[in-house]
């Protein structure tokens, strides 16, 4: 009674083909960012600026600050991941489950602290500059990454882990082959939040002389130059949008197949 079963063929195609038009819609965000960015920069080129404004809106200065901002965001994000991923994995092991509430509680304190407060506190205790700002950023944004790592691992179907153990997978292989790949969507969502958050919070680093686009905003405020302030803010917003867009693409690419 050997029956060879044929599966419905249509199913596959439906799942793989994205709705019409989504290809060019993907490019909408970077196009808009480029357009607004070009318009902003263009304005600083052609508008009549006084010497104070011209100094803080020169192309070289903007590029420097943009680069610093990207550096602040990238380094803090890498550090956050280096802390949150292993810690999240560790506390979601069966023999560490008891510690979950405590870890989340501590991480929550970080989140509840206003970033300005954290930055100023650190500046007062550690000193001003790049690294205190990095520490503040890490403290502030480690939670979403940590929480999403934990939640991502927890939502993996217990029956799958049972099946994996039952066919003789050692614990590390269950983690690497089953738990982490299946947790990837949730973990990536956390990383994406962290990244975008860090772009915004990194702007506050300008207050303690850590550089970044925040410095342009601070300069605008200090010198009562709304144009400077506006350009700085717009650039920060555009960077955040762009980072979110890139993170979205990466998320899509790393999404495990078959889900």
């Amino acid at each position: 009674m050997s029956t060879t079963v044929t599966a419905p063929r249509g199913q596959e195609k439906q799942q793989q083909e994205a709705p019409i038009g989504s290809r060019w819609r993907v490019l909408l965000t970077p196009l808009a960012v480029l357009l607004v960015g070009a318009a902003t920069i263009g304005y600083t080129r052609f508008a009549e600026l006084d010497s104070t404004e011209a100094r803080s809106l020169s192309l070289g200065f903007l590029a420097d600050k943009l680069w610093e901002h990207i550096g602040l965001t990238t380094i803090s994000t890498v550090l956050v991941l280096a802390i949150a991923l292993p810690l999240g994995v560790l506390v979601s092991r069966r023999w560490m489950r008891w510690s979950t509430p405590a870890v989340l509680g501590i991480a929550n304190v970080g989140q509840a602290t206003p970033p300005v407060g954290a930055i100023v506190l650190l500046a007062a205790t550690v000193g001003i500059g790049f690294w205190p700002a990095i520490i503040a950023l890490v403290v502030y944004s480690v939670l979403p990454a940590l929480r999403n790592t934990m939640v991502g691992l927890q939502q993996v179907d217990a029956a799958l882990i049972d099946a994996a153990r039952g066919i003789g997978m050692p614990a590390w292989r269950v983690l690497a082959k089953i738990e982490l790949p299946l947790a990837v969507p949730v973990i990536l969502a956390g990383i994406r939040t962290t990244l975008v958050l860090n772009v915004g919070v990194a702007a506050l680093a300008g207050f303690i002389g850590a550089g970044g686009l925040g410095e342009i905003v601070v300069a605008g405020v200090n010198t009562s130059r709304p144009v400077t302030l506006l350009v700085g803010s717009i650039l920060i917003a555009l960077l955040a949008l762009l980072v979110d867009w890139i993170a979205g693409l990466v998320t899509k690419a790393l999404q495990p197949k078959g889900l």
Partner: protein
Amino acid sequence: MPESTETPQSLAELAADGERTGGVPIELIDVVKRFSGTKGAAVDDLTMTIPAGEIVVLLGPSGCGKTTTMRMINRLIEPTSGRILIGGLDARAQKPDELRRHIGYVIQQAGLFPHLTVGSNIAQVPQMLGWEKDRISARVDELLELVGLAPDEFRDRYPRQLSGGQQQRVGVARALAADPPVMLMDEPFGALDPITRENLQDELLRLQDELSKTIVFVTHDVDEALKLGDRIAILGTGSKIVQYATAEEILTNPADSYVEQFIGGESAMKLLKLTRVSDVALEQAVRATEADSAADVRRKLEEAESDWVIVLDAQDRPLRWESLADLEGATGTIGDLTAGEDDLFDTVISGRATLQEAVEALLNAEAEVVPVVGRRRRYVGAVTLSTVQQAIAEIKERERRQRKQRAAEAQPGVAV
């Protein structure tokens, strides 16, 4: 410590020992499992032997400890005390992960890894055993074929793209990957619709015919237990064995009212359902092959006082009936006769079929006789309505005798 002696020290060595593919016995000796924080034991001093190559069903209400019992065999749960021997080897003396790679494990809803393809799901255990790529992919295709899924079509699909039944076929293939001597199945068909469930149960029996694994099967479905189990252990609270016997014994001779209640009524119909065609006396028709001369066959028919001859091919597979009338005046061989349309078989039944299915086939078939085939479609006999009738009568008679006997035992001194 693995020694290079003749006696294997672990299940891995036992399984790797040449072409040994059949099952090994499992012994549970005074096994107790107590979970911390609960009153009483989940498994309370259980001793049972599961014979090699048999399907043993652990049947009981939910919470009776049957799944716990099963999970102690592959050490997903460690017993509080007692010993478990698999193929005569202590399970505790072996590394759990290595032990489990040689114990097939099938769970409800298959538990396939959704992010891995069907092929990759099946390949997990061979990968862990360090097989070479070519060997793994050949094995994957072989297993897909075995469970009735076309390899080219299914190998690269993801579990989500399969129906529930197909998923569980893959689940069984994954469990069989390293050709383990033992399979543990935890309510594998529980979440499937009734038709798919029946199909897969039949498939499992067909597979078991070929593979003869030792299968421990957990279910709370009485009909499933009766159908699949060579032996059924009916468990009460604390995994206490209330009755451990064949399905027939349990139906005709339930140990106590608990078993009777659990099995439910209609035991005669259930017997018909679980008695296999191969277990009853079959009619034996005169056999012939294509190469036999018609004259010889006619003589044989006359000797046997029969009107029909069954024509078999070189592998003893039934081809068609020929009547005495067709043979009249025929010269040459049987193969020379032109077969009429209605001579060809539209129905053959397997020896694995139940009497109930045989009756069904007889009622639907044009002929009064339906040939029965065994392994590889080899002809083993034929079944008629009177064959079935006789079998029913025998079962009833046996049941009556046993009931009387039980009554006599229950009331000693009272003449029956």
